[in-house]
């Protein structure tokens, strides 16, 4: 537990919950701000990662685990997902080009 939650050990979960809800509301309202599409995407993806990190770190206690464990989980998921994405994305352009012909 962090120093701030020594009084009430459950406080970290309430604070995380509130932050997650605030971020969710911000994500829902983002479209109303009529920001450029690329910026909206960036905004949503960034906050998605923040939410995932908070759930993994605080609810799943990954930030209190052995650092190697946290690295195994984070790199295992992120690197493999990026490899999948990198192999799949270029193919979508090929498919689109073929269907446009």
């Amino acid at each position, binding site marked *: 537990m962090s120093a701030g939650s020594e009084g009430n050990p459950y406080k970290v979960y309430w604070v*995380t919950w509130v932050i997650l809800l605030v971020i969710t509301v911000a994500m829902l309202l983002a479209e109303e701000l009529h920001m450029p599409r690329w910026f909206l995407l960036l905004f949503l993806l960034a906050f998605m990662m923040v939410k995932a990190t908070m759930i993994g770190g605080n609810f799943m206690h990954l930030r209190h685990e052995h650092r190697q464990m946290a690295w195994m989980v984070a790199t295992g998921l992120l690197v493999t997902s990026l490899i999948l994405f990198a192999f799949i994305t270029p193919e979508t352009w090929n498919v689109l080009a073929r269907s446009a012909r």
Partner: protein
Amino acid sequence: MAEASHAAALEAHWQGGVSPFGATWQKTMMWIFIVTDGLLFSGLLCGYGFLRMASPLPWPDRSEVFSIPFIALMTFILITSSMFMATAVLAARLGDMRKALRNLIYTIVGGAAFLGCQAVEWSHLIHDGARLTSNPWGAPQFGASFFLLTGFHGSHVFSGLVILIITAIRTAQRKTPPQGIEMAGLYWHFVDLVWVFIFTLFYLV
């Protein structure tokens, strides 16, 4: 000398030590399972991205298809149940099994409410004409992506609920150690974590 101590440190972690990664084998295996299950969803989300980007027909407009406030309510329910689960895990660790059981029950109620909401959402979409291969709003791949992604997630919520109900019953009978609640909690948080990605990539983007 330094090499020898490094080898000894590695051995302590990897050569059958009682706590690889400084965690019990149950927790380590649960994390490995979570990574592999996460990769399943990663593949599904990449497949969805592929279908969406490669579709020559426009992807359905989310505000036309979904009730976004309703999806927001589902998200609220799942995040809240995750918070109760984290509280249950800590209460069990601190030896307060009554509080752990109470929060486990809140988590189960939240999970059941989420599944109920998902059933309502599916019913509405099916009633409006959404099928695996067609829908009235745009690209036909939308239906397959939606039902596959949310269906897989829903099946995880369902299995998580079964695990939580068994854990709650065994906690009430004082048969589940705190670590059992922690393992169930890791799985439940994973279900919440996956929803964060589905919510953003499918409902908001």
